[in-house]
């Protein structure tokens, strides 16, 4: 081969490699980017980790999922934000952290990006309540919802039928039915809720408190923790624990509460819809054939609203713009209709889209999805106030309500003390 021919071959090779490289780059626009995600250890976390390679396949970006318990997630992400250490690009944000995130500008305000990509994201298909409550605060969208949970009532059809009782439709009926279904000699209890000191008992009581007409804040947004309605609801909560809950419930957190229900100890439990797939899983549940799910009962005369909780995903405001854009692409991908379906078929139990909740395959697998859809249509995500002071208020309530349940203090005195301390936070 002559020198000229060799030169031509070399040039042709170079051109080919350049074209192939450009084509590859166009095919995988995020190649070489790594996104670090701090995720709450909920049912969605392992599913995100499982689906992440698919995102890499499509875009070239690697997503590393750090799965953390609630306390560690809060501490590690806050330390990352405060220290501007950029350890995490994406963080899962609990609905109640929105105020703190907005106040401290921890994450990118997604408002403009959502407007820009509304069509691509099929925004009309996403429940407005999830966008409003999970991440929107003070005019900013500090996170985008990807896992909406509805507060639902899980109950045992067999126990209610055997006792000749109907499913409670009001909070008053719920209390009555719970007490009637309790028979400690048979190790059968009508009710279970979190009693453990800390976020566990505070969050569950706030749910019952809202259903009974109580509210932590008054109309002006200031603490009204020792209001008559709150004191009365705490009395009812204590009555339920004294007369209808398993003795160990004063020390139950979410895990203990769910386990007592799955093991058939309890007839009724208000819970987040995310736990529901577990009741139908014979490998962990003894109540597969007898469980049913309905909306939570509200006290007579009150507007019908259902508790909304869940997680949004926020983008660390400290990371550089290219990384932020890549993170936003991941959020759009995760919340797209196709991935949301796959996400939930894998058992994430996390919903934000109307099309996902109406999907025939998902409905066949999880028969309670219409209940979640109904709850999302009438959702209240503010019964746990999403204000910057919420973590402290939750901690104060977590101690006070637990003290009331174990009999250490009267409801009025406990809530008076919380009110006195909460006022100092504003």
């Amino acid at each position: 081969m002559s020198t000229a021919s060799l030169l031509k071959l070399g040039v042709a090779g170079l051109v080919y490699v350049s074209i192939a490289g450009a084509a590859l780059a166009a095919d995988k626009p995020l190649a070489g980017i790594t996104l670090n995600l701090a995720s709450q250890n909920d049912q969605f976390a392992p599913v995100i980790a499982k689906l992440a390679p698919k995102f890499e396949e499509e875009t070239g970006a690697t997503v590393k999922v750090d799965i953390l318990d609630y306390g560690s997630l809060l501490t590690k992400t806050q330390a990352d934000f405060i220290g501007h250490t950029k350890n995490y690009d994406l963080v899962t944000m609990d609905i109640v952290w929105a105020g703190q995130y907005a106040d401290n500008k921890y994450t990118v305000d997604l408002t403009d990006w959502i407007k820009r990509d509304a069509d691509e994201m099929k925004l009309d298909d996403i429940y407005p309540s999830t966008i409003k409550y999970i991440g929107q605060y003070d005019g900013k969208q500090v996170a985008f919802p990807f896992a909406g949970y509805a507060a639902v009532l899980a109950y045992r059809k067999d126990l209610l039928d055997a006792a000749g009782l109907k499913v409670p439709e009001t909070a008053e009926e719920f209390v009555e039915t719970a007490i009637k279904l309790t028979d400690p000699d048979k190790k059968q209890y009508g009710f279970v809720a979190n009693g453990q000191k800390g976020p566990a008992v505070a969050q569950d009581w706030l749910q019952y408190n809202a259903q009974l007409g109580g509210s932590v804040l008054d109309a002006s947004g200031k603490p009204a923790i020792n209001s008559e309605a709150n004191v009365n609801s705490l009395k009812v909560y204590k009555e339920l624990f004294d007369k209808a809950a398993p003795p160990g419930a004063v020390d139950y957190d979410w895990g203990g509460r769910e386990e007592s229900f799955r093991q058939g100890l309890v007839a009724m439990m208000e819970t987040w819809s995310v736990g529901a797939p577990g009741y139908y899983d014979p490998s962990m549940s003894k109540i597969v054939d007898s469980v049913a799910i309905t909306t939570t009962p509200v006290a007579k005369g009150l507007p019908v609203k259902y508790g909304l909780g869940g997680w949004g995903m926020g983008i660390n405001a400290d990371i550089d713009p290219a990384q932020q854009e890549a993170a936003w692409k991941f959020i759009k991908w995760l919340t797209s209709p196709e991935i949301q379906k796959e996400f939930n078929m894998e058992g994430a139990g996390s919903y934000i889209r109307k099309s996902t909740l109406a999907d025939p395959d998902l409905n066949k697998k999880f028969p309670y999805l219409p209940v979640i859809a109904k709850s999302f249509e009438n959702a209240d995500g503010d019964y746990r106030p999403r204000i910057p002071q919420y973590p402290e208020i939750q901690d104060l309530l977590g101690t006070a309500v637990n003290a009331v349940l174990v009999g250490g203090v009267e409801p009025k005195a406990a809530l008076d003390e919380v009110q006195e301390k909460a006022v100092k936070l504003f």
Partner: protein
Amino acid sequence: MATTSVGSIDFPQRKAARLRFQDRRRLFLIALAVPAVVYVVLIALWPLAQGIWYSFFDYNLLRGGGRRTFVGLANYAELWTDSTARRALINTFVFTFAAVALEFVFGLCLALLLWREGRFNRICLAFLLIPVTITPVVVGLIFRALLAVDYGFFGYYLAEWGISGPRGFLASTSSALPVVILIDVWEWTPLVALILLAGLKSLPGDILEAASADGATALQRFRLVVLPLLLPTVFLALVLRVMDAFRVFDIIFVTTGGGPGDATNSLMVYGVKQGLQFFNIGFASAIGNVAILCIAVLCAAFTLLIRRADVRANET
């Protein structure tokens, strides 16, 4: 002027050389100490000084953009006016005194029982050390599981037989703190026993034999000979345990989380919550400083008591 030395007489040349050598040696020793001093300053003194400084400020990293506002001693005053902090302080003192007292009494009894040489005692000592080798978090988790009323090996039956009440010992405001104290006693008594046993084994045998020969009873030998001679070891054991017990965190954190209510809340549990959960740096620093101060005062008190007891023993 060059000089030399004959016998014990130092001549200027040799003296200068020796001084230079001493200076060099001193410099060398200082150089050896420098890394340790720098380490202590950076790792202990500087953070301590910062902690003291921050405690005079209202300084919350989550609110007000992390601004610091000078508040003087307000954070220290809050330790007493805030009912939760006051409860935590009182609980910590109760926990420390009760746990250390019980550990000392049981530890001394065990040490005296194991004093004699023998295979049986050596085997017992080996088994006795098992609790000390387990990390307190695991100890807490084990006891939490054992005392659970739903499935705990002890908790279930204690509740069934009506001994603990239907909700168990850890869910009662009156019994939770004593139970947590007993868990600490279970874990750390063997360590106290081991320290005291080492002290007992090092006592001079001839004095004890002389006391026996003089007709002293066992109780007299213990009170008048063994205990006074054991005082330095007792001091070591008590100081170590007081320092550790006052900082109690892990056992309480995993068994009760400070509950029920505030029944088992300790200064460290509260301090960690304020500092690492709410990032309330000013108040958390004040809590930490008070803990250090309390430990220092308690240790100084022990030093004085033991010294006084030692003087009294020497006088008799």
